[in-house]
């Protein structure tokens, strides 16, 4: 079985785990959005790696370019997320704990890096 298929299967499995987690927590009446960040993040990583794996297998200048561009676009996205989150927390529009904020930022940063690499590889 090739890497692409393994990554896609893992991504789908983690998406299913996320769905099951949401369903169970809603059923128990204790839904906390924090719980869905880790499995969703892992499923995003797996699905993006599934798409990128055949292209990234060979370490050449295009793959380096994709990584560089992906990080470059992510840098601006991360600054935007931080400014938005800071504004929302400062004006009390969003009231979250420090742990939640860290988890949210981690989820956004990791997802953005991988998704931007997929987008860049589509363009170039």
């Amino acid at each position, binding site marked *: 079985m090739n890497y692409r298929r393994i990554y896609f299967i893992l991504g789908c499995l983690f998406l299913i785990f996320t769905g099951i987690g949401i369903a169970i927590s809603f059923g128990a009446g204790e839904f906390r959005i924090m719980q869905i960040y880790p499995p969703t993040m892992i499923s995003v990583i797996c699905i993006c790696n599934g798409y990128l794996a055949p292209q990234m297998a*060979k370490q*050449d*200048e*295009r793959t380096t370019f994709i990584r560089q561009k992906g990080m470059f676009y992510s840098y601006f996205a991360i600054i935007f997320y931080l400014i938005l989150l800071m504004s929302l927390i400062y004006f009390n529009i969003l009231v979250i704990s420090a742990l939640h904020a860290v988890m949210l930022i981690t989820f956004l940063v990791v997802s953005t890096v991988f998704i931007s690499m997929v987008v860049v*590889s589509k363009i*170039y």
Partner: protein
Amino acid sequence: MKNKVMNYRKRNGYSQDKLALILGVSRQTIISIEKGKYNPSLPLALQMAREFHTAVEDIFFLEDNE
């Protein structure tokens, strides 16, 4: 920047896979270069020109110099 990589590749009887193997890059890189989506680095362009026994400017050129 435009290029005639596909013409030169076919003229020399190379498949995309074979050219990628010779140049030490992935097939996607060759596809992207042929489509004009990605411009190769100078060493890769020189390597390509050497493989096709021609000059870099014969393969790669600006659109207004076509």
